[in-house]
Each structure stands twice: as structure tokens, then as C-alpha cells.
């Protein structure tokens, strides 16, 4: 094989794949039992980090960037004048194996532009995965993109070889989808999701009876939404994320701040800023919903359709609900502790363990690693020092912001002047 040619293809097809955010390589249970290559039973590993600070865990490439669709938000859309290329199946297999053997990656993330038809494209993705598993005895991680509109039979086969499957819904609302991707139907996205969900449920049921039932997508499925392309509110985004978590039992929903790539009047202009702070707040909200016992209605509703920019969503919620506080660190239950701003899940566990031995005071909490700068306004402990009774929400907010530095601070420093 000619390295120069491969290099050119890799440049084109990796460049087009980088807007897919997911790089997770955890959650699978594929152990190396056949003395083959690779093992993905442990936690995920980030082998390197891009210069924008994102994890590089998988070889993330497109099979091809030829595409029959013309979605406005996508670099590989048909009408875009860019270099096009396509990998052969064996080329992808060789790259994956040789990168993996050198400990560069955890596995492969294979996506594709759609050429000819959904099924024709998906067939080729499945062929790569099958070859890796059957011929190369590869037990590393494989993430396949489900091409919208793929038939159920092919989705089933994909699940047999892949660890994770994903369809990116990209646009959180159906009206937005009509505007930016007129050739695609909402059903094209949900059909593969439904198939994968049902197969996973069936696999779990069958595995209870027959232990050797072949694995089906052991790391589950995920999806991704573009943020800030069609003017939707945070509420719309998070309600739709909640829907996908519940309805399709998604492992993850990813949020991707829109990077302007096209001069199209339906979209933010070229050169406009990527909404990174907003993206960050959405991820924080996502975590509160999945790990901290919050309901989406508590954080976002008709009165608060958008998240605060200057404070994180948990602090924002606490400031709106001061009547829940202060709580007593030495008696409050886990769920209530998790709602205190400045207490993460790790701190909550440590507090619950430590308070069995003695009553905790500020000194203990500081050593445990609690962010007291925020937390002290919302709790009492074994100490007489608690001087912040009856403060207004705006006063607390001003004090907290006044004593902290944030990486996005310059983006809202004008608001901060109000408190100075």
C-alpha cells in the first residue's frame, strides 16, 4: 500500500470526522480471551489530547466524505466544494490494527458520508467491523455510526460487531431539522435507534437464559446535538435530551457548540464565536440530571427557559430555592448533600463515610476537598461560625463571584460590574 496516498486520504477523512464529539471508549465488556489483540474490559483511556483539549481515544475517521445529502450544518454536504476521498475496507482495517498495536488508540470510530444509499454505506461500515473481529481477532473498541435510514437487518448485524452505535440527531427540534436538512426525515434517525434499543433489551433477556448469547452493542448507544445553529432554547435542548435518555435508553447525549463552516443565511455567520460556555453549562446540566438526582423541570422551565451564564446550573437552582438551605452536613441525606453547590459526588461519599467517626467542622470539609467558597453559604456544620444567615440570593451570588476566577469570566464581566 502506498503511504503517501493513505496519508492524503487520512488527512481528508479525519478532518471531516473531528466534529463528532464522542470519543468514549469505556463501558464495554470485551475481554481478550482468545489470545488475540486488544481488550476493552476496563475503563476508557485517552491516549492523547487535541490542542483544543479534547480526548483522543479512538481513530475517528469517515469511510468516505462523498455524500448525497445537503445538510446546511455539515462540512461534507454535497454542495460544499471540498476535496473528496474514500477508504477501502482493508485500508481502514490496517490503520486500526497498526495504530492499536503501538498503543496510540483504544479502537475505531467509523462514520461516513452517505453514498448511493443508507444500506449500501452501512454495509461497508459493518464489513470493516466484521473483518476486524473475525479475521484480526480484535477485541478493541469499535464505535459505528448508524446511517439514518438503515434497514433493521443491517443494524442487527452492526450490533454484533460494534461496542457502541450512534445516530446523531444533530438538530434538537423537528422544525430546525426541516429548515437545515430538508432531505432527511425525523423517522430516518429514530428507526435505527429503536432497533438498537430493542435488540439490547432482547439480548439482556436472552443472556439470562443462555450465557453465551452473542453480545449486542455492549456499550450501548449515544447521540449528539448541535448547539446554537437554529436558535433553540436551553430548555428545548435539555427536554429533548431527556426524551432521548428515557425513550431510547441512551448511554450519552453529546452537545456540540456549532462551529461555523458555511456561508448560509440560515446559520450563524462564518467567524462567529463557538458557544463554548453554553456547551459547558449544558453538560453540567446533563450531569445533574444523570448523577445528582435533579429533574429537568427543576432546572429549566417556562420561567427559566435558559441556563444562567455567570453561575453553574446547580448554584443557579440553589439561589432560586434558598428555602431548602442551610442543610446540616452531619445529618442531611445523600441526595440533599448532592444538591449543595460546591459538593461533588466524591465529596458527598467522603462526607458520609467520615461523619460516622466524628462531627465534621469547616476544617474537615476543607481537607476533604469541598469547594467551600460556594458551599459555605448553604450549609451548617459542627462549628459556631456561620455568619451568613438571611442573605439575599443576589448578595450570595455577588460574594461567590467576587471570590472566584472562571475561565469564561471575560465573557460576562460586564454583568459582574453590577456587584462590584
Amino acid at each position, binding site marked *: 500500500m502506498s503511504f503517501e496516498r493513505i496519508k492524503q486520504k487520512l488527512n481528508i477523512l479525519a478532518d471531516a470526522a473531528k466534529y463528532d464529539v464522542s470519543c468514549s471508549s469505556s463501558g464495554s465488556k470485551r475481554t481478550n480471551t482468545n489470545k488475540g*489483540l486488544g*481488550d476493552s474490559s*476496563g475503563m476508557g483511556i485517552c491516549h492523547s489530547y487535541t490542542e483544543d483539549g479534547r480526548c483522543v481515544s479512538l481513530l475517528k475517521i469517515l469511510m468516505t466524505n462523498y455524500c448525497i445529502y445537503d445538510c446546511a450544518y455539515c462540512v461534507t454536504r454535497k454542495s460544499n466544494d471540498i476535496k473528496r476521498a474514500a477508504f477501502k475496507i482493508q485500508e481502514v482495517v490496517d490503520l486500526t490494527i497498526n495504530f492499536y498495536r503501538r498503543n496510540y488508540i483504544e479502537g475505531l470510530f467509523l462514520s461516513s458520508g452517505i453514498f448511493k444509499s443508507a444500506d449500501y454505506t452501512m454495509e461497508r461500515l459493518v464489513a470493516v467491523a466484521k473483518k476486524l473481529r473475525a479475521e484480526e481477532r480484535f477485541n478493541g473498541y469499535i464505535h459505528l455510526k448508524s446511517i439514518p435510514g438503515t434497514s433493521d437487518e443491517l443494524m442487527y448485524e452492526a450490533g454484533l460487531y460494534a461496542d457502541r452505535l450512534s445516530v446523531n440527531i444533530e438538530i434538537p427540534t423537528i422544525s430546525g431539522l426541516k429548515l437545515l436538512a430538508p432531505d432527511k426525515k425525523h423517522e430516518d434517525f429514530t428507526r435505527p435507534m429503536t432497533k438498537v434499543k430493542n435488540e439490547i433489551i432482547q439480548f439482556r433477556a436472552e443472556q439470562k437464559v443462555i450465557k453465551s448469547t452473542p453480545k449486542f452493542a455492549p456499550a450501548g448507544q449515544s447521540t449528539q446535538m448541535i448547539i446554537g445553529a437554529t436558535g433553540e432554547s436551553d430548555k428545548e435542548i435539555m427536554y429533548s435530551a431527556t426524551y432521548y435518555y428515557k425513550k431510547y435508553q441512551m448511554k450519552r447525549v453529546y452537545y456540540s457548540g456549532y462551529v461555523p463552516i458555511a456561508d448560509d443565511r440560515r446559520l450563524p455567520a462564518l467567524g462567529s464565536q463557538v458557544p463554548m460556555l453554553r456547551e459547558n453549562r449544558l453538560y453540567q446540566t446533563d450531569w445533574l440530571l444523570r448523577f445528582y438526582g435533579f429533574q429537568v423541570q427543576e432546572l429549566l422551565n417556562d420561567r427559566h427557559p435558559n441556563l444562567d451564564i455567570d453561575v453553574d446550573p446547580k448554584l443557579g437552582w440553589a439561589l432560586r430555592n434558598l428555602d431548602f438551605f442551610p442543610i446540616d452536613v452531619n445529618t442531611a441525606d445523600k441526595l440533599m448533600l448532592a444538591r449543595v453547590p460546591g459538593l461533588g459526588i466524591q465529596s458527598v461519599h467522603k462526607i458520609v463515610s467520615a461523619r460516622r467517626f466524628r462531627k*465534621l467542622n469547616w476544617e474537615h470539609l476543607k481537607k476533604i476537598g469541598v469547594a467551600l467558597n460556594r458551599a459555605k453559604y448553604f450549609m451548617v456544620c459542627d462549628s459556631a461560625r456561620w455568619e451568613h444567615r438571611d442573605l439575599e440570593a443576589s448578595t450570595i451570588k455577588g460574594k461567590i463571584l467576587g471570590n472566584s476566577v472562571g475561565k469564561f469570566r471575560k465573557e460576562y464581566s460586564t454583568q459582574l460590574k453590577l456587584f462590584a
Partner: protein
Amino acid sequence: MNDSKILIYDGSFNGFLTAIFVAFEEKIKVTDIQKNSVSQNGLFSDTETIFTNIEKAKRVWNGIQSKSSSAIKNIYFAYMSESKGVELLLYRYVRKLFAAPSSEHSDYSDGIVLKVGQLAKSVGREKHRMEAFVRFQLTKDDVYFANIEPDFDVLPLISKHFRSRYADQQWIIYDVKRKYGLFYDLERVEIISLDLQEVYSNSIKRSSAFGTQEYDYQDLWNNYFKSTHIKSRINKKLHTQHVPKRYWKYLSEKKEAV
């Protein structure tokens, strides 16, 4: 004063566990536990040399493990930090563990417990980093070879990970700082020491030990790495936070940056 002693051991983990055994058995008031290579006599205390005994070490290991499996992991990891005075700290930790009725290891309001936890955590982090940052280069003898220079002695901790992952290829991971390595010969992992002529960092300069195909793949990987950056989101600070500069010279994707 008579019964306070400094225990001197051979520097192995089993030696350290034996020292703990002896201290408990002979009810010694321990003022310090030191490696024989670095021992310093205290002004007012006697020293006692400990002879490593696998049986005794095993009894200590099992004893701690039956108390708590997370405590034994913490002790092993914290020990690998090679930090100054870690032996005495761990000895106190073990005493605490055996003195209390149960789950003393989870008392995060206690200074010793917290300190051991922190040491174990930083060693765990370095272990994880090495699982990520090892970059094998294929030699002409068909062995995947990597040099590392970790902050702590993590080779024993990463052996299992690489053995189960690369079961069908021969590999060597060599710690340049501590001058020993692991060699997997398709059957088992052995500890080796090499007389290395040069450190095989991932430099632009080519070495005759590796074939041209090796450099072709490094080139491809470099190219791939570059095309993953999204220019409008560049955040160099975050990048170096995740990939600290001291590791760069062994990372093939950073060879132009070094």
C-alpha cells in the same frame, strides 16, 4: 528510650511488609522504617535490620486485605510513590487499621487516612497515564519497544494491563529512570535490565533499530493527530494540563513540538 528503633529493610515491598510484621510481633516502638540504601542513624534510637521473609509478608498482606481490600490497594499504590517517609506513614496507617473495629480506612477526617489516600491517588493517576502514553515502536526484531520515565515506580502496576491487551505481540516497556523493564515473550512477563546505548524517545532523528514502515506509521499518526484539532476552539492551556510537557519526548505525536 530503649525500646524505640529504626527498622532497616532491603527496599522491596515484601521487605517492608516483613518490617511491619516484626514491629507488631516484637512490639517495637518504631521511630522510622528506612531502605538500607538510604538509611540514616537516629541520635537516640537503635536500628534493627529486617530480613525479608515472604511468609511473614504474605501474612501482613492477607491480614490487611481481610480488613479491607481498598486499604491494601491504597497501601501498595502509596508505597510505589517512593515519597520520603512513606514507610512510617503506612506503618501508622496499618496500626490504625488494626486498632479500630472496622472501616477505619474510610475516615476521611483523619490526617493519615487522607494522606495515604492522596498518595495512592497520584500513583494511580500516573499508572493510568502510562497506560495511555506508552508509545510502542516496532523494532526490526519484531518486538514492540517503548521507553518511559514515570514519576513513580508504576511498572509493576501496569504489567497486567499490557499483558492482557497485547497478548499476541512481543513487547518491552523500559523505565529509563529506574533502569529496569518488562518483557513479554508471548507467554509471560519478565523483569529485565538492558544496557541501552541510547534512549529511544520519539525523536525526528531515525534510529537503525526500527524499520522504515515504523516511521511511516509514526508519520501517519502525526498527521492524524494534527487533523483532529479544531482551530476555532484551540485551548493550549487545557492541552498541556492533560498532556504535561515532561511526557512529550516519548510521545510520537509531539516529536515536532519537543
